């Protein structure tokens, strides 16, 4: 016997969501989805949740279990009963429509923004048709680069716990960015430059904080954060420098080459860009504040010992590229 504490919300009756407890004899081997179904079928027909394939393929049944998103059909109930209880809520970063069902319109709209279709020779940027219908072959090595992102089932678990999205709904988010990587790195796609330029704009690849929640919550093998990192690497290789993210990486790497450690006095200036007057001005209050408390980094920036060896390593990599 376990108690399922489930978040309920009926927009026609309730102002705010509340929790309702259900007692259930959990059958051996039952998934969280089995339990939700048993509660709905035997105790409370008004409980509303989404499901379809029951095989972790369709991505419909994502809910928060004990605080974090999981596919209900892929999660063993026994693993999630802590002290005789389990808490079930709708996934986060989405408007609740009813009980455990959320509105996914915003989630889907981000995918449209990254143009999730192949842009091929003759197809133009709109992706409309192609001049010839020939087969576009791909080597196993080329496919390997997009394999991880291809496994996305669009369940929104990654977005549910994305910290950057929680603070800024305009962020493209881990799912759509992973999908973007799937096309940027597709050997058959010819839209890479335009794609990367668009993705390097505000609310794009440089708005990910590396918090790792998306990797942790993804029930497939997408590892969205790693896909975003890959997009950043591509952006740097192509040389899209007109943004703080790329300038930050360039300044950072430059300091480690020169002194082995960060120069926190100068790096923010390099990240902002020396011609970005509003950006530079925004650094002043925190700079003064830290200076007054003696928190400013030492004015004379010293390099680490054995700097020659570190520079030698950097030079080896420069030669390679």
């Amino acid at each position, binding site marked *: 016997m376990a108690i399922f504490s489930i978040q309920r919300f009926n927009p026609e009756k309730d102002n705010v969501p509340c929790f309702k407890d259900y007692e259930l004899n959990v059958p051996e081997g039952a998934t969280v989805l089995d339990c939700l179904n048993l509660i709905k079928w035997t105790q409370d027909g008004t409980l509303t949740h989404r499901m379809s394939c029951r095989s972790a393929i369709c991505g419909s049944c994502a809910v928060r279990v004990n605080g974090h998103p999981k596919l209900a059909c892929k999660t063993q109930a026994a693993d999630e009963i802590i002290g005789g209880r389990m808490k079930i809520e709708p996934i986060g970063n989405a408007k609740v429509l009813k009980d455990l069902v959320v509105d996914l319109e915003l989630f889907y709209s981000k995918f449209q923004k990254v143009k999730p279709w192949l842009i091929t020779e003759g197809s133009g940027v709109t992706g409309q048709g192609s001049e010839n219908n020939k087969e576009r072959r791909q080597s196993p090595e080329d496919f390997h680069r997009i394999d991880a992102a291809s496994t996305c089932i669009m369940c929104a678990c990654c977005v549910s716990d994305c910290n*950057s999205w929680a603070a800024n709904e305009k962020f493209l988010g881990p799912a759509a960015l992973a999908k973007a990587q799937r096309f940027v790195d597709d050997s058959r796609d010819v839209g890479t430059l335009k794609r990367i330029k668009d993705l390097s704009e505000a*609310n794009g690849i440089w708005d990910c904080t590396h918090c790792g929640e998306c990797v942790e919550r993804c029930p497939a093998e997408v590892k969205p954060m790693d896909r975003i990192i890959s997009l950043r690497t591509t952006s740097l290789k192509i040389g899209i420098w007109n943004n703080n993210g790329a300038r*930050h990486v360039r300044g950072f790497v430059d300091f480690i080459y020169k002194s082995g*450690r960060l120069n926190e006095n100068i790096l923010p200036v390099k*990240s*902002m860009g020396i011609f970005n007057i509003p950006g530079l001005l925004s650094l002043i209050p925190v700079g003064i504040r830290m200076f007054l408390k003696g928190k400013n980094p030492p004015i004379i920036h010293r390099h680490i010992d054995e700097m020659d060896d570190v520079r030698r390593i950097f030079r080896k990599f420069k030669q390679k590229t």
Partner: protein
Amino acid sequence: MKYAFYTGCVAKGAGRELYSSSVAVAKRLGIELHELTNVSCCGAGVISEKDPLLSDTLNARTFAIAEELNLGIMNICGTCQGVMVKAQKGIDGDTKRKDNINEILKDGGHRYKGKVKIKHLLHILIEDFGLDKLKTFVKKPLRGLKAAPFYGCYLLRPSVYSNFSSPDRTTALEDLITVLGGEPVNYEGKSKCCGFPIVMMNKESSLAMSGISLKEAKEKDADCLVTPCPLCHLNLDSYQPEIDKIVQTKLNLPILHLPQLVGIALGIDPKELGMNKHIVSTEMLLK
């Protein structure tokens, strides 16, 4: 007990109170430290965006130097810890990568064998030193001080790289706070992101992230936050006046580095712990 002490950049730069408090606590507990002065920055997940192999090579050099000393690495920065463990797992799990890296290290006279243990001070206090033993060193128990733990992402996620077996359910910081006589505050924000990595790219969004957790901790009556990551500290403390405006609340929530909280309980002079080097005053806590 002796460790190869990896200070990280912030403890030598904008967060020198983390360095002084770590050294003071280690000395009081009899933990010997060999400070690594000839190692580079871990890359903080930034160098790896430019070139993953370069980042791994720089970290492998650090690991090799610790191995040559026959010491495990002690980190005092959650980000350094997360980055290093990720690098180590990547290198150890790929013989070809490891050989490539060692080929580059060879000319500098180093070779990474793959046995160095990498731990954050938090892990060292809990796993190596032991909380029971730590308890015997407590001279000024925190007497119900409501301390809100703030883990920082890199120490927890992705869990395949974490030293915690179950990062979602870890109570390491809470256990430490309790042993020191404090009262850990239970709130969702403890494992959320401070937003620091994008403070230069999208300041408003970055500080809003800190704001969400700080406000929640404040509403749960926290007297202070304690964090094992100096990058989290930078956002949560140095930018708190701007965060106040975003959450429309005067938060006035002091943010302590992990060794500072330990140091207070051990009765170390607050000045030595750098308690005066905070944007949000810590005076109320010391009373």
